[in-house]
């Protein structure tokens, strides 16, 4: 239970690293970046490659910077061209980008998962509870993501840049009115968001599996988080990240099916047909479905999301 | 029997009251103008009547039928049609298509996907007749977005009247037009609203006093006077609140 909670919080914090960047990009630029999870994947792969050459600690810094620069370049030479065609082409551009990144990654690192290992320094168990150990690297991941969260919070609430960003979240036109160089701000925001995603990739890579499908597995979940929390709302994204992290982790841990539940109250299982499948489905299997159900429901009943102020 | 009646209509945005108790009655076939200073709530009042915004309090009736809280399309189907202050057309559709779309519901074709639109002679003829009325017949095959400003304003009116609504609301139909265009437009409005009830918001006092049978003066969310043009002109309260400056600006 404690482990599940810890893992859930950890997964949630990782989601938030991605979701915060996505929220920033959406609020300021109006672009729902389909390729955001691809930058997370690039982060993981760059992290893997750089750790092989120069070690994990260099990778932890260098990979996000590199990915951030790539993100900025994509904004500068890609998105900016598409911007004049409108929002749908922008969305489609990032959609195509996600596609290309996945193919490139497959080409360079192959289709199979790469052997991205936990650095030796952190390869021990942090503590033991009820006979099960909890790896130190996971604690480290948690630490990093909480630290970044706190830094973000401080920057957003205490600094001048943070105030500008906050203003831009609710009043996107303000940034331009205040006389800031909008294209440059866009480029920086996009690059920064991609860098944040890459950090998540670098630290998640060794713990989860680093493989070419990791982007499109996470991508839709990320959208659920951002939309569920309310587009443009960082606190909303934070709550939604934790919520979905916990739900998914707990769902996997519980092995209980509808059949069990109905059996307990005395309803037998139908012999055949599609319904018998329903009976066998366990909560663990339903786990991946829940976020999408949440997304659909919230969009129908509360279009602004949990904490959002803007309609989607 | 009144074509349109408002009973103590209120509208607040958040805590800010914009419309503070408007009661108004417009008779059948009447040409009614609503005037008032900027920010008085004229456009908001239009949005409330046409269903774009929900009414906070009060009642709106169209031909003695309660239309409060109905959706814009429901109100439109009951015979109230409106134009917009900022041109609101279908820019990539042809001029002809703009008008034809606006006649379809009222000819009973609704959501039909079993009629060939080319063979709907009544719809095509009516759309063409309206284009002739508003003087855009020779433009019919152009995309509406490439028309000149004045032509788009004419099309806006064409779309508004196409459905044959008994009550027509025009929101600043002559805004941004030159003198000669305005004169032409006044004739156009008079022609196309023949036999209908007209309610319009207008800043150009020449147009207002030329067209209107009755005038209501809206100041700060309330109607301070509603009367014939001659009496409005001599009403001192109106003079003070608005008309003095407005007429001054005209000359």
């Amino acid at each position, binding site marked *: 239970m404690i482990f599940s909670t810890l893992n859930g919080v950890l997964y949630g914090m990782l989601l938030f690293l991605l979701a915060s960047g996505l929220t920033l990009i959406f609020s300021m630029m109006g672009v729902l970046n389909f390729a955001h999870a691809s930058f997370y994947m690039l982060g993981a792969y760059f992290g893997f490659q750089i750790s092989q050459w120069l070690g994990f600690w260099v990778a932890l810094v260098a990979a996000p910077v590199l990915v951030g620069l790539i993100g900025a370049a994509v904004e500068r030479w890609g998105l900016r061209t598409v911007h004049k065609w409108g929002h749908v082409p922008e969305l489609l551009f990032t959609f195509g*980008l996600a596609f290309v990144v996945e193919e490139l990654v497959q080409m360079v690192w192959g289709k199979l998962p790469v052997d991205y290992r936990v650095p030796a320094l952190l390869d021990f168990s942090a503590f033991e509870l009820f006979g099960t150990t909890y790896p130190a690297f996971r604690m480290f991941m948690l630490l990093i993501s909480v630290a970044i969260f706190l830094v973000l919070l401080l920057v957003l609430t205490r600094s001048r840049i943070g105030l500008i960003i906050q203003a831009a979240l609710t009043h996107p036109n303000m940034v331009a009115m205040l006389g800031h160089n909008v294209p440059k701000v866009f480029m920086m925001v996009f690059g920064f968001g991609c860098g944040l995603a890459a950090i998540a990739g670098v630290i998640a890579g060794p713990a989860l599996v680093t493989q070419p499908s990791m982007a499109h597995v996470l991508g839709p979940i990320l959208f659920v988080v951002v939309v569920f929390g309310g587009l443009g709302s960082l606190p909303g994204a934070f709550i939604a990240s934790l919520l979905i992290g916990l739900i998914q982790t707990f769902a996997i841990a519980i092995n209980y099916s509808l059949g069990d539940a109905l059996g307990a109250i005395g309803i037998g299982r139908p012999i055949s047909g599609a319904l018998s499948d329903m009976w066998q489905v366990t909560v663990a299997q339903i786990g991946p479905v829940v976020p999408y159900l949440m997304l659909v429901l919230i969009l129908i009943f509360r279009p602004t999301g949990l904490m959002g102020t803007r309609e989607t | 029997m009144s074509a349109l009646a408002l009973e103590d209509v209120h509208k607040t945005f958040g805590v800010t009251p914009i419309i503070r108790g408007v009661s108004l009655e417009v008779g059948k076939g009447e040409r009614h103008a609503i005037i008032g200073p900027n920010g008085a709530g004229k456009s908001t009042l239009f949005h409330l009547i046409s269903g774009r915004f929900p009414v906070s309090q009060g009642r709106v009736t169209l031909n003695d039928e309660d239309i409060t809280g109905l959706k814009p399309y429901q109100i439109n189907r009951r015979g109230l049609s409106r134009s917009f202050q900022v041109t609101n057309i*279908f*820019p990539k559709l042809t001029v002809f298509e703009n008008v034809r*779309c606006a006649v379809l519901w009222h000819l009973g074709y609704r959501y039909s996907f079993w009629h060939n639109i080319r063979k709907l002679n009544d719809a095509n003829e009516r759309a063409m007749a309206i284009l002739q009325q508003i003087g855009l017949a020779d433009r019919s095959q152009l995309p509406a977005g490439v028309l000149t400003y004045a032509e788009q304003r004419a099309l806006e009116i064409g779309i508004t009247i196409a459905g044959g609504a008994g009550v027509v609301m025009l929101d600043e139909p002559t805004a941004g037009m030159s003198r000669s265009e305005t004169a032409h437009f006044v004739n156009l409005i008079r022609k196309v609203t023949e036999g209908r009830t007209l309610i319009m918001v207008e800043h150009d006092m020449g147009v207002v006093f030329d067209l209107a049978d009755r005038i209501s003066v809206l100041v700060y969310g309330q109607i301070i006077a509603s009367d014939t043009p001659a009496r409005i002109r001599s009403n001192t309260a109106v003079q003070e609140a608005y008309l003095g400056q407005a007429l001054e600006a005209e000359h």
Partner: protein
Amino acid sequence: MSSTILAAARPNPVLDLLRRYGVWIAAAGLMILLPKVFSSGAALTTMCLMGIMIVFSLSYNMLLGQTGMLSFGHAVYYGLGGFLAVHAMNTIAGGKLPIPLPVLPLVGGFMGLLFGFIFGAVSTRRAGTAFAMISLGLGELIASLSLILRGFFGGEEGITANRTKMLTLWGVRFGPQIEVYYLIAAWCLVCIAAMFAFTRTPLGRLCNAVRENPERAEFIGYSTQMVRFIAFCVAGFFAGIAGGLAAINFELMNAVNISGGQSGVVLLMAYIGGIGHFAGPILGAILVVLLQVFLSDITGAWMLYFGLIFIGMVMFAPGGLAGLIMLHLPLWRRGTILQVLPHYAAMAVPVLMGAAGLTLLIETAHHQLVKTQTDGPAMHFFRLGFDSNTPLPWLAAALLLGGGLWLGRLYAPRLKAAYGDAAHGVEAAR
């Protein structure tokens, strides 16, 4: 449109008939003749796939191009239609029911319609980005359910059927691919005609109005939600027919057919072809299937090219292929198209240089990274043999790519001016 008014005055009925139905007669003729020209098994399979994808992408464009609804989950209706058709095939074969194969796509169509109705009622209440997100959520929901509900979806392997076990009419058992081809071609033509007819109905036109300006549509008496909903149901119906055709063609449906990937492919097809024109998605479906078949034969990195072509289209030709063609129609009509041709020829040099450089780069990299361990460093590029371990191919690729980009940028303004002259000269001559 203009032809309606003109046609009324035209006295020659034969000419008029030909004008109106000429395209359809030509299309039918082409579909009949194609297998005579390309009779190989591979060609037939490709053309069958094209027919299916044409129906699918046209149904998608009813949403995106005509009503302005961006859907990320259109494969749901295609896939469900296909799965039900496969199950229907098995049931009919098992129970010896007197239902012939050619009507089976209708089963898929009704499944698509049913789910279009259910999910449409939920998702078309919202428009714009919210609609797109709901469609994404529903798409992923069904895709993940397809892996859980093994009874209906058959898990990873999918569900198979045998199309020849159905009632035979006039001795046609649909065993050979050529018979399936004609079945698909016939359905394809019927569906194209039906979807085209849809654009010429009051609702079809209102779909365009809702895409252009939903607010104004509400003020001319139409509930935009209802317009979106009906369009969504109809699009689901045709997607289901495409799914039914796919079930007949492959005799197999699996989770891939209903996945987000499939939804992405149909979006790519419609967009590359051009969503602004009715025929755009047809072009897109043909091109994408061709790319799939031929590029995957030539190169292992074909998906990458595919993605790059898509991005290139989004960036530089948002109107798609059909948009590019429409751009030149006025020049063709006025006879000024010859003016711009030399400029296009000149522009082709840097474009080809850049493309050659990029492909050389990708191919060399692909060879170096993927195939060197198994095949050794020697590789071929357009029959040119070289060693991918030496710097020469890399250098050549970089030079070609860089040179192409540089020359292209240099020449682009002149090309633009030439096009402008040709187009605006037209306006002036009027």
